[in-house]
């Protein structure tokens, strides 16, 4: 057994929450620069230039890169030999609370979806836990903006709809999202499982580094094809016209029922704010 002080977890969440709103991951910046070079629309290049300048200004001048500093999503992978000395969920919320105060981040969370009073500190984060082997705790953190979250969709397809049916639904979702979701996008597609788990893995797929290849060649091939199809739509950066509607499509598949084909499409804007720490 490893005695685990939850203060470690609180500090890790605090650091990630503060850092990710100001400094975006290297894989994303590299993808954005490559997209800028490959963009064949003048408006598209101009827009990507401003987005790249924005990332520099954000780091240098200490502005969050985007004013929607998101709702916090946290995944905890807890080694089964870990014993927490106190409530780990409380520690996560404490990290978020302190980061949003100290980091001049926007508090965008309401405590109830219909009565809509702001909680004042951006809590609660949405937390998912998984028990794994070992004595470590891995924390994955994302600050999810809602311009793109609002453009996400889920549908229970029929098994006979197959690959083409799923692709059509992905393209429909991206088309309806259009400029509202702030392209260039990262598109997470969860296929299979149950209603809820399709959505969960779609969001988890957004955490994969941009440029990473799916380990299953069947899905690696679909990811490349669907990205081409999305980028043929012509929305381009911010929907002003151009090639770069999306930077990546990430698919996550789960076993499912003989009668079903759940598909969830979770859209991320170009604020791909996520980090992870192993504690």
């Amino acid at each position, binding site marked *: 057994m490893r005695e685990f002080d939850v203060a470690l977890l609180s500090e890790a969440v605090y650091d990630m929450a503060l850092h990710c709103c100001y400094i975006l991951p290297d894989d994303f910046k590299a993808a954005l620069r490559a997209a800028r070079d490959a963009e064949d629309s003048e408006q*598209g290049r101009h827009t990507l230039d401003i987005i790249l300048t924005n990332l520099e200004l954000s780091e240098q001048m200490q502005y969050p890169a985007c004013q929607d500093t998101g709702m916090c999503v946290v995944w905890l992978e807890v080694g089964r030999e870990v014993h927490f000395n106190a409530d780990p969920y409380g520690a996560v919320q404490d990290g978020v609370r302190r980061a949003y105060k100290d980091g001049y981040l*926007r508090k965008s969370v309401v405590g109830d979806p219909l009565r809509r009073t702001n909680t004042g500190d951006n809590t609660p984060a949405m937390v998912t836990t998984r028990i794994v082997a070992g004595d470590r705790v891995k924390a994955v953190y994302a600050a999810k903006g809602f311009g793109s979250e609002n453009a996400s969709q889920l549908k229970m397809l029929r098994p006979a709809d197959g690959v083409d049916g799923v692709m059509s639904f992905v393209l429909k979702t991206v088309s309806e999202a259009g400029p509202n979701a702030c392209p260039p996008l990262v598109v997470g597609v969860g296929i299979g499982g149950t209603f809820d788990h399709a959505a969960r893995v779609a969001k988890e797929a957004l955490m994969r580094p941009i440029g990473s290849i799916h380990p299953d060649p069947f899905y690696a091939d679909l990811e490349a094809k669907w990205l081409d199809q999305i980028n043929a739509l012509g929305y381009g950066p911010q929907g002003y016209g151009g090639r770069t509607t999306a930077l990546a499509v990430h698919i996550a598949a789960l076993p499912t029922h003989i009668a079903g084909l759940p598909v969830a499409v979770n859209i991320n804007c170009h604020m791909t704010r996520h980090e992870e720490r192993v504690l």
Partner: protein
Amino acid sequence: MSVLEISTPLTAALRRGLKAGQQVLLSGVIYAARDAAHLRFMAALEKGEALPIPLKDNLLYYVGPTPTRPGHVIGAAGPTTASRMDRFTPVLLELGLAGTIGKGFRSQTVIDAMVRHEAVYFGAIGGAGAVLAESIKKHDIIAYDDLGAEAVRRFEVERMPLIVLIDSQGNNWYETGPAAWRSRKER
């Protein structure tokens, strides 16, 4: 690509000269309001009360900035999705509002009202919170302070980078921009 420098107040004559797809740098005074402030605007109008901002020839920016860091004028200040304000926009245009600044699609009802009142919808780049903050030189909260990020603000902006998305004739760059790119590909 030509970039046009414009300033507020944005009279109908100035608005008529702006075409969808035109990049502009905007200077002058603009006002900020988003979801919750619009609800209060509507409640005020229903009661016959005056709005806290002047509308005639003015622009409304849909933004909820991050808290201001000491030494800064404002926090990150990029646009939010405009369509959530669609149900309120025609009334404000009717009262003289010259146009709006945001991101994303507008409804046909809004576009029709824009044509009637020769209004303009400008796009600011979503997620360019730092770039847009740097163009804001003065920032005052002028109403509904209790709404926090959603309070109504008055900004003085200098060379704020925008694009004309929907012009006063109803031309929509969200349609023509991507369509032009697609037809270039097909040739």
